[in-house]
């Protein structure tokens, strides 16, 4: 728009005012979207699962969980191996390489397993969920389901949400187990840390509730947030091919930011007091 044009439109279009207006509109849009997303989550999750619902959930467990297993396990193995290698070179300077098991296990259980699995999950399963639901929307499958008299929130969204909630904690457990084994391979088998001290140091320092439990709570929170974002982005997108590709990108970006931000908050709450 030319300057002349802008002046004619009057004071409300001058830069500072315009930016305040844009800020206000952005805030209102965000609140609106949050409200819609919250209502959406509530409507989808409530309700009694039927036998049919369980069958649909199983199918999504396969799609969301089992199909993500390979990438999560392979990443876990490599991260455990790298942790052991890096940890060893630092610890050996203090003659404390016996503490390797403790270091690997605690870093994995408290931080890396929940966070990295959730990031991988957002990239692998989250984006696929958004694209799939978006495609169903673009091809009018959701509308036609409604016309047949079936609520798509119940039939399409709910099984996917529950599958996500259950899958990610399981994947996180797998990540930890494989990572600790990877640390064992590098630390004990390759670098020659004494096997007994690898395990006993670990067992002496890892608390079942404080570390494993809290790690699982983290991953459950991440599971809810990531699945919710993915499914909502799919349901709420503009049903064109451009809309789908944007929504998929948004899913990955929003999920990653949410995971990292929430991780800080949760860590401060869980481990803040433990010196």
């Amino acid at each position, binding site marked *: *728009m*030319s300057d002349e*044009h802008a002046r004619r439109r009057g004071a409300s279009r001058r830069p500072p005012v315009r930016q305040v207006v844009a800020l206000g509109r952005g805030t209102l849009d965000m609140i609106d979207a949050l409200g819609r997303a919250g209502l959406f989550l509530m409507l989808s999750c409530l309700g009694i699962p039927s036998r049919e619902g369980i069958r649909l959930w199983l*199918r999504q467990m396969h799609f969301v969980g089992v199909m993500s297993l390979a990438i999560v396990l392979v990443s876990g193995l490599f991260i455990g191996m790298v942790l052991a290698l890096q940890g060893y070179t630092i610890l050996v300077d203090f003659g404390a390489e016996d503490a390797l098991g403790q270091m690997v296990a605690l870093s994995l259980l408290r931080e890396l397993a929940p966070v990295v699995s959730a990031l991988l999950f957002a990239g692998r399963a989250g984006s696929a969920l958004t694209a799939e639901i978006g*495609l*169903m929307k673009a*091809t*009018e*499958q959701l*509308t*036609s*389901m*409604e*016309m*047949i*008299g*079936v609520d798509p929130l119940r039939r399409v969204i709910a099984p996917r949400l529950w599958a996500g909630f259950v899958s990610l904690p399981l994947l996180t457990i797998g990540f930890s187990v494989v990572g600790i084994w990877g640390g064992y391979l590098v630390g004990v088998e390759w670098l020659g840390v004494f096997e007994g001290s690898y395990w006993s140091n670990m067992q002496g320092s890892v608390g079942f509730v404080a570390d494993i439990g809290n790690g699982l709570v983290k991953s459950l929170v991440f599971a809810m947030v990531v699945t919710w974002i993915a499914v909502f982005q799919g349901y709420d997108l503009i049903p064109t091919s451009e809309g789908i590709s944007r929504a998929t990108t948004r899913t990955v970006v929003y999920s990653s930011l949410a995971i990292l931000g929430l991780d800080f908050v949760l860590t401060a709450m869980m481990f803040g007091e433990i010196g």
Partner: protein
Amino acid sequence: MNDSLLVDVEGLHFSRGEKEIFRGLDLQVPRGKITAIMGPSGTGKTTLLKLIGGQLYPDAGRVRIAGEDVHRLPRRALFRLRRRMGMLFQSGALFSDLSVYENVAFPLRVHTDLPEAMIRDIVLMKLEAVGLRGARALMPSELSGGMLRRVALARAIALDPELILYDEPFVGQDPISMGVLVQLIKTVNQALGLTAVVVSHDIKETLSIADYVYVISDGRVMAHGTPATLDVDDDDRVRQFIHGEPDGPVPFHYPAPDYFTDIMTGRASS
């Protein structure tokens, strides 16, 4: 209340954002007939079907189906009413994770407790009616566009609805599938005694099957009548649309400043 009317739309107003799509639309669909709703692209024909199906809510006016005000019904009653309606979507809208057979069986499984053998009989009967009994094991991704729409039609009539809404059934079809679809819509209407609403801008095909035609433009009904009377209508706008003339009351040019000054002032934007 006229008993021969199945759908009665009165004074419908609907806007999306700033844009007014309908401003006082009235139309009546008689029972057992094929009523066509025609109009240029972007006049909200699909929106009208969604309003009739109760998926969108109007700003004013009402839609009555068999005497029931669609938008006043509680959710449960609305879903019950939808059992009596079938809708054929532009893209077919088959569920991509179910086979052709399961797609047609879907409404039966949801709304009835029929035994599996009975469901099978009904599904095969409906598929036979659209000529795709042999394709029941295929997945929707393995079908052509015309076949998708035929399966969708079989699904739409699975529960023997009273009313069936067709959203642009002829768009993007080759001449053969177009002919097949025209034939099918006609037979389904006659054989099952259904009421049909066809939304389309394919004039020749639509006029060949419709009993009564509404032409909408600018959010209102511009003209209505039987195909024969519309064909000889003298109104400029109706003639332009029915005979497909490129220029007329609906201008060829998107509104723009004067061509000559536009070229001579030589600014890229504004």
